């Protein structure tokens, strides 16, 4: 067991160093930060932003229903991030194995004494950690904004919401890793991952039309609903199990596909 964990950590460190030394990863991060910033700043501070529009309502003194600005903003912004992650993460996951194939190091990995799944877990941990690093500036902006909340905000909902975002990212990256292990073309792997995630994201639309058991199953497969649960501050065990299932599925399928690769020749 200790050997396995040591192996996972070794792979994890190698991967992480690779990300922090790779210009492409930084470019993806910059795009992510820019787009997120373009959503964050206007919708919070802009003339059409939530603070201004609620302040106008208050000045008129309209006794409308109470509104929790911080909570509304959190839901909106994490909803945006959820869609953004869908577009960007396939770019991070596309190289996980496809690069190794290109460089010809995949055979080394496949035949190394390390078990396939521990390699997969190490790689996944690495890329999820890099994604968490990408989130840090956004968490910093939110912390500044929410520190000015009155009455003071309780941390439970924002924490669960961000946990949900990382879980969603891990699920997407895990599936992306599997697709990346099938092909040696990084572009193809990115496009396939994106298509798969979009399909899982939007399957809910189909599920709403289908009634009965099949509809319920399709509804459960959909990523969007489970992510929304967590973002709203609901910890639903079935949602967490589903997202975790995607992560496990991605890791195990990757291990199986690398295992099969040994005999492809």
């Amino acid at each position: 067991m200790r050997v396995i964990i040591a192996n996972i950590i070794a792979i994890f460190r190698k991967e992480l160093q690779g990300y922090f030394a790779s210009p492409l990863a930084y470019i993806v991060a910059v795009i992510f930060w820019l787009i997120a910033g373009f959503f964050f700043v206007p919708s919070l501070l802009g003339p059409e932003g939530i603070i201004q529009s609620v302040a106008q309502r208050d000045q008129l003194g309209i006794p409308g229903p109470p509104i929790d600005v911080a909570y509304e903003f959190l839901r909106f912004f994490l909803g945006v991030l959820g869609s953004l992650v869908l577009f960007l993460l396939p770019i991070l996951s596309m190289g996980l194995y496809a690069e190794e194939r290109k460089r010809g190091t995949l055979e080394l990995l496949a035949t190394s004494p390390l078990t396939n799944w521990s390699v997969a877990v190490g790689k996944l941990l690495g890329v999820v950690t890099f994604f968490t690093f990408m989130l840090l500036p956004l968490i910093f902006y939110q912390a500044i904004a929410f520190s000015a909340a009155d009455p003071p905000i309780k941390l439970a909902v924002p924490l669960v919401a961000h946990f949900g975002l990382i879980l969603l990212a891990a699920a997407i990256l895990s599936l992306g890793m599997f697709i990346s292990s099938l092909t040696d073309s990084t572009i193809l792997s990115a496009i396939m991952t994106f298509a798969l995630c979009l399909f899982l994201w939007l399957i809910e639309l189909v599920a709403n039309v289908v009634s009965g058991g099949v509809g319920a199953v399709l509804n459960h497969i959909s990523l969007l609903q489970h992510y929304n649960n967590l973002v709203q501050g609901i910890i639903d065990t079935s949602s967490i199990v589903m997202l975790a299932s995607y992560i496990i599925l991605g890791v195990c399928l990757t291990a199986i596909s690398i295992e099969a690769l040994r005999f492809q020749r």
Partner: protein
Amino acid sequence: MSKKSKYWRYLIWLGPCLLVAGLIAGLVTGEWTVLPIIFLVIGLGIIIFGLITFGGAKNFFARRSTQAGTNAIVASVALVVILGLINFLAVRYTGRIDLTENQLFTLSPQSQEIVKNLEQPLKVWAFVPTPNPADQELLARYSRYGENFEYEFVDPQIEVGIAQRFDVNLIGEIYLEYGDKKQLVQSLSPGEPISEIELTNAIAKVQRDVLPKIYFIQGHGEPLLEAEQGGFSQAVASLEKSGYEVEPLNLASLAAVPEDAGVVAIAGAKRPLIPGEVSAIQTYLDNGGSAFLLIDPNTNPGLDSLLQEWGIVLDNRIVIDASGTGSVLGFGPVTPLVRDYGNHPIVADFANGISIYPLARRIDTNQVVGITATPLIVTSEQSWAESDVESEELEFNPASDVPGPLNLGFAFSRPVSSTPTQTTPPPETEAETPPATDEEITETEAEDLETEETANEAENNPEARLVAIGNSTFATDGWLDEQLNQDLFLNSVDWLSKQDEKSLSIRPKQPENRRINLTPEKAEIIFWSALVVVPLLGLITAGIMWWRRR
């Protein structure tokens, strides 16, 4: 592997894609027409063809790679099945924690209770062709609390048989089916969500065998129960929706309050009641009845003996609200906006919500032994009871006016046993004389099986209840749907009819009222770091890395 077959290999993946497309198309439309079947056949064909083409070469099934491939497929299928089972169990036994501050996504305790205690299966039929997620969420929430709760969304244009069984005439109608009873809950306009309040009230109502009766006393210039200017038609409709039967009552011709009365309301009487009527109401109260008094300023309902008995003092001065909060909504100073409520089940969850009382009088109380009086509605600090409304300037005059906060409404209760002995003798007609002793009450109640709750109440803890509010306009058409007015009205009736344990009106969940007050400095920090500093740092780092790579 030749180059050609390498690309052909990718084409095999078309097979499963077509297969899935065919399956989905078939399931979505619900009918297996030609198109999905063609897809299925072609998909299967491609898979078989592919297996034969790539397998036909050199005793396919003996090769090691094939074995490995088969192993991989078996392992993948096993994995998917195992995960599927785990998820199935997770859905069956879901635990949910709602971390939002006001439990926005959790049913109110009343709704939970009512679903837990369902004795027979209850089904909600929503005749909505395209259910919206919020409605599905709400009904799913209900079904988590009880085995007996089921729901189904039906398109009335497709499932004509079901729609005819319920006699659906509009899309968007929600029906309950409980045993052999069917009941309309709501008729939704497009985009309107199902309301928890309506649904829970409807469930409470559909389970009752006998509807409690609310009598509105008529004949002294009270607003009519029909739709008219200033009538009570909305109030009556909302009572009927909450499972009450509402009837006008002309006491002058009856001489006694009917036995099946849950609540007797004297609302907005402009002329005094005759003494016989008053004594009939007193007798009814002495036997554990409930009365709802809505008395406007400048009217005298002639209830002095009854009011004295309960220690109620009507103040003839009009309440002036000088806080100016009403001016936003277009109300003048004689329309007090109330945000403060007493400590009573009727107003338990009003928090600081608003209710509005156009032209109200102050209600005061004297201590009477055996009677519990609880203030319900309290006006703001900047209000007073004005004695001289005719004067040009409305201003507080310490000599003749009473400073705020003022009480506009009280709830009273009095145990039946401590009934004062000198009750007026009941009117002459023997047949309609209500039973005068407790024993007789419980007997007749047990026989008649009038609303079980009332019977239990009467046996366990019989008490007479009374709510007095110095205004009736708040419950009339046009005012009832302002802010919390309807809640106050319905909750009062619920408490009076002793239904309050069952279905005190549930208020919609409301989020915390929170603002973000950013200082300009903090806003600057967010602006610059989000749009300039952080992305620029990232770019510079990317540049450095690229340079080092070279």
